[in-house]
């Protein structure tokens, strides 16, 4: 019997890999910048994770790839992130009806059936405002690391309103605020608010039925979490490792391949 199943999520900014055993427990996981070749990074990561857990390629029962880079990866099957995210989240939160996933360049909302199957979904189209990229650009303009954003934003008493839809123009706005002497915390709180507003409007189009699960890399950002909970007026369930949930879903699908 196979000892391990592999899920690979090659996203626009990062690559995530999850290894699970036949009991569907997570054995190991890894995240790294995708860089130029997400495929190479993923292949190396699979290898190092297998070594880390004392397993070999022959122990792998199946591999499923997801994310934008999925077609380049030599997996047994490539499956869309929407299906993988649904699979992963339903496994972790069986009561989830709505998934809000904000990744590097994508924001998506998925409505689940009680069985965990995808009922409906919506994604941002042709625009990266309200995604991880938006936060990255703003954090960089303010010379703070992404990890600091949440903490700093929490200290704000008067969040600035960022009015631009466009990430690039919003950056100009932020720089303008900095020049005007607006405190960093207020700008950062405004940035988090802008992301939350954008995504909550997408969510309201599809579903805001509880339980709501927030996932994707941006779910680690406390500033966005708080802003989103305020916008939706509902609590959000978040896994301890939100960036790997799609890769987990892929691994789960791999375990069901044969």
């Amino acid at each position: 019997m196979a000892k391990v199943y592999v899920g690979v999520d090659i996203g626009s900014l990062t690559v995530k890999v999850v290894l699970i055993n036949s009991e569907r427990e997570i054995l190991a996981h890894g995240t790294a910048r995708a860089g130029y070749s997400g495929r190479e990074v993923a292949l190396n990561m699979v290898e190092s994770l297998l070594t880390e857990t004392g397993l070999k390629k022959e122990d792998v029962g199946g591999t499923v790839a997801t994310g934008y880079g999925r077609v380049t990866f030599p997996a047994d099957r490539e499956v869309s992130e929407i299906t993988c995210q649904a699979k992963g989240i339903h496994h972790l939160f069986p009561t989830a009806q709505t998934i809000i996933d904000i990744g590097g360049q994508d924001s998506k909302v998925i409505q689940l059936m009680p069985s965990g199957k995808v009922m409906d979904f919506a994604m941002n189209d042709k625009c990266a405002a309200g995604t991880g990229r938006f936060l990255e650009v703003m954090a960089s303009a303010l010379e703070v690391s992404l990890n600091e954003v949440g903490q700093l934003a929490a200290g704000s008493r008067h969040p600035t309103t960022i009015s631009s839809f466009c990430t690039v123009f919003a950056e100009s706005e932020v720089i303008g605020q900095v020049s005007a002497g607006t405190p960093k915390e207020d700008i950062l709180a405004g940035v988090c608010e802008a992301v939350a507003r954008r995504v909550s409007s997408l969510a309201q189009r599809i579903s805001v039925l509880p339980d709501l699960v927030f996932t994707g890399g941006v779910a680690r950002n406390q500033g966005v979490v708080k802003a989103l909970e305020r916008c939706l007026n509902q609590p959000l369930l978040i896994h301890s490792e939100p960036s790997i949930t799609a890769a987990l879903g892929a691994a789960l699908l791999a375990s069901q391949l044969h």
Partner: protein
Amino acid sequence: MSVQTQDKVQAQDKAIPKKRNYRPLRSTEKLKKTIKTYYFLTGTHRYWGKPLGRKLAWVTSGAPVELLRVFNIHPAYPEQYAAIYSTNKATAQLCQVAEAVGYSQDLCSYARSNIGGVLRPDLAPMGGMPKPDLLVACNNICGTVLKWYEALARHFNVPLLVLDTPYLTGEITEQALNYVLEQFKGMIKELEKITGRSFSEEELKKQLDLSRATTGLWKEARQYCQAQPSPLNAPDLFIHMAPIVVLRGTKKGRDYYEIFRDEVKERVSLGQGAIENERIRLVWDNIAIWPKLFNFNKMFTERGACFVTDTYSGGWAIDLAPGSPLESLAVTYTEVFLNRSPEFRAQQLIQLIRDYKAHGFVMHSNRSCKPYSLVQEVIRRKVMKETGVPGLMIEADMADPRAYAEETIRNRVQAFLETFD
């Protein structure tokens, strides 16, 4: 590639269903000949128009062409030429010509590319459209045509006839009918003046009979797709609809659809499907994505998904209204589906899903066509709720390839099709 990786790739190939074979229609040869003849005639109008005493009109797709045929007018359709510009990959360039002189990029891409083709016929397939003697616009399909055709009228300095069909929030009213009939009076006077011919109700009846025969055949052929497997896929409908648009009301048009209908009927009796291993039956909503007609559809056919019917080519699968010729004309063209309420259109889609036993539907949020697209989300929810089948929304444009984002669309289509696994 290492042996192991090769094995993995081969395994992946096995996991994805094999590429579906696309069954070509015999009728396509006849269609090509028929349409080529039409384009040839249209393109050479400047040689035979005067001697034969036949004017050439540029006409909107929803205009009551039967009335024009009474006056022996030869119709040419800017919207149809725009579709050809698109399949011939000329649209982006033509749009840029129009945008350069000031037309907004938010404007309908048919309008932009048509205007681009007028200003730069050297960039347009077939050298663009022949010069019109008159323009005829009916706003049953949208309000954009009004300003578009006004711009054309100024440019060509030719008469413009406008038919204003009131929007129907429900059934057609006595008032709306009378309003349209009253406009016909004025139009007829103008047409008599322009062509030097007299109006004949008898002639109009003949034209309507020919149209009726043609749309009846088109309707019949499309209805055969209720069979499982469906004998046709949406691209077939989009290609074979050309004569219903440009040759409706002619013997040639009717004769073509007899051939088409016979072949479709034959496929059903032989149990031949448009695609092999039809697994997922879908309904398509909105105008086709002309620049990506086959590439786009491949994402579906390679997973055994067939578009068994659609709301767009179905727009011409209508029964002409009863009554006197002018009344029939007035009602038929006011009741065009784009001129109806979201409720009506939702019911239409629901009925198609039921009649054609569809597993789901796909809506093309077509940037260009506001009346078709702006109500889609409302319709999508209603239809999903009432039928229980999933509906996918994708954003693109019917003619402008610059609005088609390959990766994002592929992602959505794949996610949608995976829900049927």
